């Protein structure tokens, strides 16, 4: 274990594991292959050690500028990216629609093109529309990192979840993971289905039929509408936030009925494997999708670890994208 007295070991470890991501952007887990996903996790692991050390700062991104462009507000994801970038030595700037001209009718593209002219190297974007990050990536010269686009994907969340699981279980391969709740509106679910399956896990999707996307049974996952059956014998229960703010129709009759059938409590959890661990991307609706007793049980809950791993996973993405920018053979010089 590295200690606060030997920071050079961490730098060495990081240098050893550093690699350049093959894609210019990080928009969907679908762009990863398994070796690349494992390398990202290895690199992120090294950054976990760094984050626990006294001296947390590296200079891998020195001189690079990262812009957080958040059209939807998110305290935790935005600060996670900001800390990740700062620990790597980048300059960061946060933009949110409330303080920009987006409200004055400027389009997503206009905003991006304006930002692009200021020559950032990395653009982290969150937007309420599926496909927004992909659209931006076609119009700017910098690397675009998807921090959540509508219901589509949230790939760094999947990466941090995989990192959390790998550290808790040693490997993701062979784990049975039940993703439970509002799958329909969840970008976290879509990214996790892709990445966990890539890493060799078996994925189940659990939720009421009204919150399950059409064709989810064709994603390679098993679909359950009975939560007890869905979490029976699983290694991991990954709860999703019931997206109250996105409910434009009556998808479920009431929150208390939802909790009764799809909320995670100790009684339902007892059907899973004895060593079961519980995850949640946050922020939690306690008493709606998850019981406080389960969420706060440190023997079971990985929720705090997820937040810590978030910084490390994002550092790995930023560093490997920047390494690509540094590599003349890979960088295609689009300005």
């Amino acid at each position: 274990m590295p200690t606060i007295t030997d920071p050079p070991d961490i730098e060495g470890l990081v240098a050893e594991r550093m690699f350049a991501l093959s894609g210019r952007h990080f928009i969907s887990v679908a762009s990863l292959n398994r070796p690349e996903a494992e390398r990202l996790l290895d690199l992120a692991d090294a950054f976990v050690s760094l984050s626990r050390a006294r001296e947390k700062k590296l200079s891998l991104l020195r001189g690079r500028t990262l812009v957080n462009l958040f059209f939807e507000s998110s305290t935790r994801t935005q600060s996670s990216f900001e800390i990740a970038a700062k620990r790597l030595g980048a300059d960061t700037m946060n933009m949110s629609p409330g303080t920009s001209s987006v409200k004055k009718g400027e389009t997503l593209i206009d905003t991006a093109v304006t930002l692009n002219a200021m020559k950032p190297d990395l653009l982290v974007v969150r937007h309420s529309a599926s496909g927004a990050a992909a659209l931006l990536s076609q119009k700017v010269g910098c690397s675009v990192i998807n921090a959540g686009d509508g219901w589509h994907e949230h790939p760094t969340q999947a990466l941090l979840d995989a990192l959390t699981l790998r550290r808790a279980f040693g490997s993701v391969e062979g784990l049975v993971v039940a993703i439970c709740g509002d799958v329909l509106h969840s970008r976290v679910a879509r990214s996790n289905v892709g990445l966990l399956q890539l890493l060799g896990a078996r994925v189940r999707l659990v939720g009421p039929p009204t919150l399950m996307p059409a064709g989810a049974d064709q994603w390679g996952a098993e679909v359950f509408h009975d939560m007890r059956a869905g979490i029976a014998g699983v290694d991991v229960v990954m709860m999703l936030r019931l997206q109250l703010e996105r409910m434009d129709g009556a998808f479920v009759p009431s929150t208390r009925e939802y909790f009764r059938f799809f909320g995670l409590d100790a009684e339902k959890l007892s059907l899973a494997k004895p060593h079961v661990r519980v995850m949640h991307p946050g922020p939690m609706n306690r008493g709606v999708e998850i019981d406080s007793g389960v969420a706060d049980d440190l023997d079971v809950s990985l929720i705090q670890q997820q937040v810590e791993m978030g910084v490390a996973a994002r550092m790995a993405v930023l560093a490997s994208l920047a390494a690509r920018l540094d590599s003349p053979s890979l960088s295609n010089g689009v300005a």
Partner: protein
Amino acid sequence: MADVARPTAYLNARLVDPDSGYDGPGALIVAEGAIADVAHSPRIENLSADVAIVDCAGAALVPGLIDIRVKTGEPGAEPKETLKSASRAAAAGGVASIVIQPDTDPAVDEPAVLDFILRRARDIELVHVHAAGAATRGLKGVNMAELGLMAEAGALYFTDVDQPLADSKVFRRVLSYARAFGRPVAHRPADPYLSAGAVATEGELAGRLGLSSAPAVAERIMLERDLTLAQLTGARLIVDQITTAGALESLARAKALGTDVIATASINHLSFNEVDIGDYRTFCRLDPPLRAEADRQALIEAVASGLVKVITSAHTPAPAEDKRLPFSEAAAGAVGLETLLPALLTLHHDGRCPLIDLIRTVTLAPAELLGLPGGRLRRGAPADLALCDLDAPVVIDAAKLLSKSKNSPFDGRRLQGRVLATVVDGRTIYRADRAG
């Protein structure tokens, strides 16, 4: 060459005329804006010296196309498309007659706006411009528009275009009232509750992309209502842009019962399927949304069997700023006047439908539906003609379209078939340059 004053002979052509059922070598003479003679042989003997000669060199001569679903931005959104730019685009596509949709700003829900459009179009002197009137005031689906006055002013049919007529009582009244004036009513069937907010067809793809979607049955559910009300009122119903196999089944059953119904298909739904939205390609964001491949195949079958009688371009101009947005925020629709014919010919080249039957869907069938004199190569009919090389390979370049808006899903597609010239009332209003 073909000025109005001088008679013109089009020799050595392949005449394709759905009216007579003739597809073969032929020639015709145009005089005073009308077809003066038709011969089923490549030459016409003993032409008088003052007749101008056009050697068609074996190219196909078909009736000028009639496109009954064309949107422009005039009045109200001229930067998208004007009557003039739409007319030019039509001319370049071999389209001799267009029917303007009433969802302008202000809407065509009273005779003055209709009159404005028809008068503007007359001054342009390119293609024949007709107009449809709104079914309800402001296309709001609540109060009936002035159907009778608009019929008198020339409205060919009534429609609220993309707005669903959700209130069955209102729709029933529109149908029966329009019937008294001898005009059909068009409605695009989509259950308004199931389709609210949807930008794609429900299925694995839309689920994976995280797009709000409506099940394909939303179309059939509303169509069943529309067909039932058409039977009740005896009105003539135009099913606007049928797209799904399920709705086609309902249509076939209603037709077997003798319901007075004509279905149209848009060229887009015959040419693309839901997979074409791929990575959020907004040029393929359409309304109704693109369907599964099985639906597209069923639609092609329905055109071949004659169940679907009319094909339209569903020309819907949307400028770049309305399309360069996230998929769910982008405007729906595609321009199509200039690509209608080559895209249609794909079904001929693929052996899916005989050429003459395809040509019928964009000429004689819409002419008969709306009581227009064109769409036929018959003596006395207006000399509206499209001369085209059926086999010429073309690569569609949206930037080169004459439409003010360039939102073509066919951009970059390789098609076969090129319009060489378009003639309206005997005047050559478009001629392809040789290089192009």
